[in-house]
């Protein structure tokens, strides 16, 4: 894999930020888009734009075929047995909310338990809190160790006959920890619980096969994997999706409508009410093609090399704390850190002045930050177009930042 060559496909990487070449290290938040995806979007609007599943005219046929082609490619990308088991949503958050609404409200009752982990993004926590408030179900959590891994020895004790669902992230967006997905799935299955994997930080970066995992649901977002914003994916086992109630009501999700009732449409349209995000769904195919061509194994290895180098570089600087597992085999391409005496936002702004984009804050994981006893962290997250030179640039900019903020002891103040 040649990251330098790949960079030529990403127009934004040539941008200057405050006169400096952009170093984009906020890929866990969203990734940049290759020209192929941008062109697919304009190609759609210039040549194929129409509403789908309802016209008999040529453009509607073409637009429908493009969206359904993306669905087939998405199914193939994740190893789903049939395209109908792939539901398009706005994002992974909406996909998880769909499960909470359409499966949770139908199948969970007071006293039932949902097992999550302490490392969840708010998107895989708040929907279950909302359901818990409404239905009196109980949320339990697999604890996080101080090193930022899951304490699986505690998991068995948290599972029981009341556990109806185990819903967990496959990789931590805040720390980069890779979660032992198959072990948790095996534990859940032995307790007879359904499973939902939040693959938002996994699907873009490493190969994934839902048939092998045999999870019941899986969610991720297109925009974190070179695709457009506004497209999320929910995979679900066909028999479960069939049993579930619809999510939103409206056009496209119905088979027949009378004044007093409706019958829902077949999968996956039962869950796709209203005009969907047609153009972005069509253009997502170009992102899947791009990743398939490069190969996720190559992406994973490239990110591992960047992560190793970043940890070495940052560890050499004074006052740095790096969070997450020390064992590199348990890490994805995320390096979350703090500098003694400095707030993550000051680090973020200072790096921005050097053209380096990192995320600073709680990363939508406030309970995880509370557990680490920090208000937030600065986070560099890598993707296929990042280079070792960019990691070195991060190291230099951070060294300057530390020097700037620690250059003088506090002048004894007369104020108060």
């Amino acid at each position, binding site marked *: 894999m040649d990251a330098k060559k790949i960079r030529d496909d990403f127009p934004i990487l040539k941008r200057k930020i405050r006169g400096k070449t952009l170093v984009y290290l906020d890929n866990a938040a969203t990734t940049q888009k290759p020209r192929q995806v941008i062109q697919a979007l304009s190609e759609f609007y210039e040549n194929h734009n129409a509403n789908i599943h309802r016209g008999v005219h040529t453009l509607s046929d073409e637009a429908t075929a493009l969206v359904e082609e993306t669905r087939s490619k998405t199914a193939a990308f994740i190893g789903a047995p049939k395209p109908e088991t792939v539901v398009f949503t706005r994002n992974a958050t909406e996909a998880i909310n769909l499960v909470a609404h359409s499966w949770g409200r139908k199948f969970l009752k007071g006293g039932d338990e949902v097992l999550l982990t302490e490392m969840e993004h708010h998107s895989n926590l708040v929907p279950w809190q909302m359901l818990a408030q409404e239905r009196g179900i109980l949320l339990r959590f697999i604890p996080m160790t101080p090193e930022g891994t899951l304490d699986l020895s505690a998991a068995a004790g948290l599972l029981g006959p009341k556990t109806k669902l185990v819903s967990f992230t496959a990789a931590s967006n805040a720390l980069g920890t890779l979660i032992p997905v198959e072990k948790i799935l095996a534990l859940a299955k032995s307790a007879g619980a359904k499973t939902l994997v939040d693959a938002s930080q996994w699907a873009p970066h490493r190969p994934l096969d839902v048939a092998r995992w045999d999870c019941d649901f899986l969610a991720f977002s297109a925009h974190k994997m070179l695709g457009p914003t506004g497209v999320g994916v929910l995979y679900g086992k066909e028999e479960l999706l069939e049993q579930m109630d619809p999510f939103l009501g409206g056009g496209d999700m119905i088979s027949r409508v009378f004044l007093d009732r409706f019958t829902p449409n077949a999968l996956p349209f039962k869950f796709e009410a209203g005009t969907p995000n047609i153009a972005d769904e069509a253009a997502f195919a170009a992102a899947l093609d791009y990743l398939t061509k490069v190969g996720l194994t190559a992406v994973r290895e490239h990110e591992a090399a960047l992560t190793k180098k970043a940890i070495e570089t940052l560890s050499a600087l004074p006052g740095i704390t790096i969070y997450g597992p020390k064992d590199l085999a348990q890490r994805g391409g995320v390096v979350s850190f703090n500098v003694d005496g400095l707030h*993550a936002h000051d680090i973020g702004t200072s790096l921005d*002045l050097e053209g380096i984009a990192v995320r600073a804050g709680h990363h939508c994981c406030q309970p995880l930050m509370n557990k680490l006893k920090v*208000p937030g962290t600065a986070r560099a997250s890598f993707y296929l177009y990042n280079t070792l030179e960019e990691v070195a640039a991060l190291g230099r900019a951070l060294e300057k930042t530390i020097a700037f903020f620690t250059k003088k002891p*506090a002048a004894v103040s007369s*104020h*108060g």
Partner: protein
Amino acid sequence: MAEGDQELQDLYREVLLDYFRSGAHKGTLDPADFKAHGINPVCGDEIELTMKTGKEGTIAAVRFSGHGCVISQASSAMMAEALEGKSVSQARELVHAFKGMMLSKAPLESLPEELEALKSLEGVRKFPMRVKCATLAWNTLAQGLAAEGKKSEFQEVE
């Protein structure tokens, strides 16, 4: 590289760093005559503001606690300094003047002299995402005062 240095110095001025490092006005007054709690929703940073009033309702002492960045902590310390000895209505005017400064691009000459030190936050105006850091303490104060005016509880103000 020098250009980046210049920008860093323009944003994080020496006065600002001095206030940040000084720890002035950090802490909690207990008992307090006024208590307000604020959260910056962008980053989750929290501040708790406590004040004691003296004769004729003037603000006698101000303390703030909680974690935050250089900008929010320095702004809180400078606010606390500016408030001591002021009446509640003067405090409201200072909030108005300071927020006016942070939310406009206009020159700073019209700022009241009590807010002299706060001119060091001028550079923050070029960073829209950071303006909320500078105004956190001030918004907390304003909302706390408003809640107190209504004689309702002013424990949890966001």
